């Protein structure tokens, strides 16, 4: 079995995001980047599938972005992916899921993938479309919000999360593209051996412009800091002072302590 896993690099949660003068980017100087959270579950699920199915399974990590995403793909190799394809986004396509999926579809065409796994959405733009779109473009069956997998021979049985605490098992024919929900597994850290092995694994470098010349369908024309919806009263001071003030607010401001 051959499994492609989409791996996206996103700003980490702590880095400040300062919108740059052009209004369309942010200043990357102060930002560190990490693997998108649900993509970490996607690569882990691919590795667990490989453990269950056997060593003849090949895992391809796939990413689109600037040169810095090399690090993210290298991490995927260190976790146990067999090879990687890094696609340079030389057309600034990242804000259009249709364009991104079209680039990935061109890169995966002819690779004979049985499965495509992706995180259900990214922590940057959060479009939540790429994996399913890619499945459609490659003529695959699709399933989303996958919470468990049971591989078969010509199909895979998956547990999908529905709304309101409901779930449903689907038996999906292969080839298939599955979007993976967080919490499906416990993502592993790379081992020292994995990091050493990764140095010998190939990363193929391609460019978006060479893979796809189509027309993007949407773009982000401006980024901005959202207007505050509410006035927030900030409580200052030491932790002891802040806790004392909070009790006062609970008693006389919000009036929820009368019952104590």
């Amino acid at each position, binding site marked *: 079995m051959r499994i492609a896993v989409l791996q996206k690099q996103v700003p980490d949660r702590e880095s400040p995001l300062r919108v740059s003068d052009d209004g369309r980017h942010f200043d990357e100087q102060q930002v560190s980047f990490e693997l998108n959270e649900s993509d970490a579950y996607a690569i882990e699920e691919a590795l667990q599938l490989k453990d269950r199915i056997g060593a003849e399974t090949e895992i391809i990590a796939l990413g689109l972005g600037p040169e810095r995403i090399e690090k993210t793909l290298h991490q995927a190799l260190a976790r146990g992916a067999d090879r990687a394809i890094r696609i340079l986004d030389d057309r600034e396509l990242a804000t259009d899921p249709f364009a991104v999926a079209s680039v990935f579809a061109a890169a995966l065409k002819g690779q004979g993938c049985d499965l495509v796994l992706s995180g259900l959405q990214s922590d940057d733009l959060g479009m939540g479309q790429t994996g399913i779109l890619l499945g459609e473009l490659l003529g695959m069956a699709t399933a989303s919000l996958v919470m468990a997998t049971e591989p078969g021979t010509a199909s895979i049985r998956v547990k999908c999360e529905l709304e309101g605490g409901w779930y449903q098992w689907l038996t999906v024919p292969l080839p298939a593209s599955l979007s993976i929900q967080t919490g499906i597994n416990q993502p592993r850290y790379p081992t020292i051996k994995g990091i050493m092995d990764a140095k010998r694994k190939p990363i193929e470098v391609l460019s978006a412009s060479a893979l796809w010349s189509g027309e993007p369908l949407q773009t982000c024309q401006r980024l901005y800091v959202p207007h505050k919806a*509410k006035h927030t009263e900030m409580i200052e001071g030491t932790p002891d002072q802040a806790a004392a003030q909070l009790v006062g607010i609970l008693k006389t401001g919000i009036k929820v302590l009368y019952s104590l």
Partner: protein
Amino acid sequence: MDILVVAEHHQGELHRMTMEAIAAAQAFGAELNLGSAALLLGDDVDTARNTLTALDLGEVLVAQHERLRDYGSDTYTDALCQVLEREQPAWVFLGHTYQARDFLPRVSGRLGIPLLSDIIAYRNGQDRPVFIKQVYNGRLSAELVITGSAGRCLVSFQAAAFAADTVRAGSAVVRDLALKLTAPAAGIQAEAPFQETAEAVDLSGADLIVSVGRGLGSEENLGVAKELAGALGAELACSRPVVDPGWLPASRQVGSSGQTVSPKLYLALGISGAAQHLVGMKGAKYIIAVNKDAEAPIFDVADYGIVADLMDIAPRLTEALKAQ
């Protein structure tokens, strides 16, 4: 056709977010002088159809077919693509539901038309409408616009972006559509939906909620939150990053994949305030947030905020409450 709202319904009842999408269509249509219609896909659709025909819509298109009885990604993609090709609506509006997320990207891919997803607002731009989306976990907003020559667009709206109770009543004409839906050679086999047998917790009626998020850091720190909830007489709740590693059961999760709550007080500890969480709790009367990151979006909706580690605040608050 100008705007087509694709209705989602379960056992005759329209999804709340379908009503919100209709509210969006009516508002958008009034501003741009566009007419709206609704589309019902299903088998037994009488009840949902009756609800829709009592609204201020031009038409209600009804595509009834036995293969549409239960939702399936393949058939719903086929059906919606057929309708869109035939009717050519310029705008297709839906709620950003799980179902929409499951099949709309396929419609976008098959027809080559853009999908603007999880939209919270729109405004009229110079030459085209601009759609607003929360990005970077709510830390920034983005203005999305259609490019290219598709001339058509799918838009899914975030829960509560528009108010269902603003939908205007009226009377709409029904038009039946006949679709040709064939079974694929090797289709997806669906089993019956089920609920996990985990402890059922109804947080919707709770008056006071202490909720913990990623800032908890480790399972060992849960005790601190439990003690605070105990001292306050509050229910304990959490955001998704606490459920994923199994620190608390999914039944205590608040947000788009959990429960929606509207307590008098929601005390958010170490919760950054991603959109998926906010939709579940922004109906709280008072929100107090404790978070290390002064720029966390939770402070945009909080009435009171403390920039601090929850592990420094929560134990002291418990002590102070016990001393009362």
